């Protein structure tokens, strides 16, 4: 296992060491660090290929920190055309962070001229310029936590946002997951279209996928084809492009810095406002709530 620290670029506040390590399958994910307020990184991966966060910066004291890296082609060697990026930047300061990656090519699946992920005053989002997935256009400004799910085989999550207990927010631009939680769906029978597509593709593995009928057969075939043990309960590969974390704003959503003076209200307001229609009316409703979408699900109810 080789690791090598990156030298700081520009700002003296660049403190994070970035390492790229290819680990054997089954090792723990490399991305284990706790989200620090006002931090960002451009790229990471875990699974067959593990990449610790690249261009990671944080601003623990509110001072601006930034990092820029012109690609990681030498990391991927002959595979750089399959996992390619151009310029990676990340910056963080008090209450804000942002990262961008140009010329993104994830395993020939997803391409984009630019992926920008940002977070400021407890709010955030992302921007994708000329993004495509399997040749189809991606939205330029995805709504938060937009999931393109073909579970159990592949899942793409755009603009995933998680608020933390302290009010800070983490925005993850793109997360591409291969075989996400396949263990829950191993018995699903492949559709005829899926099966029809397999023969010409097995050549890419240089192996055969005999008697492929279910998702489990695919997992087993991949296991045998690679000569490594695939743990079906964990994704084979996860790739993250862009992560930005920022501390909370003033909580009123206006970004005006006025605050609301409620910091002394812990536990005091329980139930005081229950059922007060006038209070509820303070909420400015926008439009009529949508009719429900009837889902396919299995939830035993009390009959």
């Amino acid at each position, binding site marked *: 296992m080789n690791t090598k620290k990156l030298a700081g670029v520009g700002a003296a506040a660049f403190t994070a060491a970035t390492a790229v390590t290819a680990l054997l399958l089954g090792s723990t994910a490399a991305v284990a660090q706790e989200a620090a307020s006002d931090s960002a990184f451009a790229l990471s991966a875990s699974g067959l290929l593990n990449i610790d966060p690249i261009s990671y910066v944080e601003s623990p004291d509110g001072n601006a920190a930034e990092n820029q890296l012109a690609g990681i082609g030498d*990391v991927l060697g002959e595979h750089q055309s399959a996992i390619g990026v151009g310029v990676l930047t990340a910056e963080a300061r008090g209450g804000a962070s942002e990262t961008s990656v140009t010329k993104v090519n994830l395993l020939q699946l997803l391409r984009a001229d630019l992926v920008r992920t940002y977070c400021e005053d407890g709010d955030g989002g992302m921007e994708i310029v000329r993004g495509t997935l399997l040749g189809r256009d991606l939205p330029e400004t995805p709504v938060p936590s937009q999931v393109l799910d073909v579970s159990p085989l592949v899942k793409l999550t755009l603009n995933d946002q998680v608020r933390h207990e302290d009010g800070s927010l983490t925005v993850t631009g793109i997360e591409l997951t291969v075989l996400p939680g396949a263990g829950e769906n191993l018995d699903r029978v492949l559709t005829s279209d899926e099966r029809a597509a397999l023969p010409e593709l097995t050549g890419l593995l240089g192996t055969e996928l005999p008697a492929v009928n279910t998702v489990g057969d695919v997992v087993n075939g991949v296991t045998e084809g690679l000569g490594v043990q695939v743990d079906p309960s964990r994704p084979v590969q996860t790739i993250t492009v862009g992560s930005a974390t920022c501390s909370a704003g003033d909580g009123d959503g206006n970004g005006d810095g006025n605050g609301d003076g409620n910091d002394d209200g812990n536990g005091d307001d329980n139930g005081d406002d229950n059922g007060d229609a006038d209070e509820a009316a303070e909420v400015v409703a926008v439009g009529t709530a949508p*009719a429900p979408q009837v889902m396919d699900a299995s939830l035993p109810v009390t009959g």
Partner: protein
Amino acid sequence: MASPEDRPRTSRKPLLIGAVVGVVVILAAVIGFAALSGPPDGSPSGIAAGELAPAAGELPLSSTYTTVDGAPQDSAVDAKTSGVVVHPIRETPVHDAPNGRAIARMESTQIGDTWLPVIGEDQGWVQVLLPSKPNGSTGWLRSQDVERANTPYLINVHLESKKLQLLRDDKVVGEWTVGIGKESAPTPAGRTFLLGAFKDAKQSYSPVILPLGAHSPTHDTFGGGPGTVAIHTWPTDDVYGTETSDGCIRVPPDALDQLTRVPLGTLVMIDED
């Protein structure tokens, strides 16, 4: 700018790296272009089959599968609201008061999109009914983490008279005689809401089931589920006007047709009248 010497390196594992590329290419081709059109027809939805225990130190999820300790109780169970409902646009903590203690997490989807009724408001915060146990649980969400909308509907369920009323803009647009829970497994009174709408291939008694944010007071679990109370229809009409269910509200098919079009988050007020 980092020099080439400064760039991160990896031990060369061409087989493995090549393998994952191969895997992805194969899977990409297998899945074709379905990715942009959502889940394949007939595939299961994203609903969790159950709820895993949270990791140590992690907030529990507030869902129909979970119990959230420390959630403020709804203290105005017979009060209507203005019809404001909210949809979390991101995963966000549930607090026990504005700027109070975080007691749970709320996700943007549960059974389809999550929509919760607003029962209170403070600057920058909304108080909502929760889908988790115990019944009558409430919590506070940051306003900046939710999308707001308005539902013109209200559903009243009167247990004694076994009537369900659907109101739109305060006018009754439908009224039906319904079946409710038997004495040993009563339908819980209180203020709750439409949590979701789903089809379940594993049962045939109702084409669509509308789970509520309430649970049976006597069945901690039922049929492998968490005792969620729901509105649905029934194969025979002799159940309407009776107390024969295990807590669910059984409605005639035409009632279900109308209720299936009512927005999630709509208030369901169940009283003893």
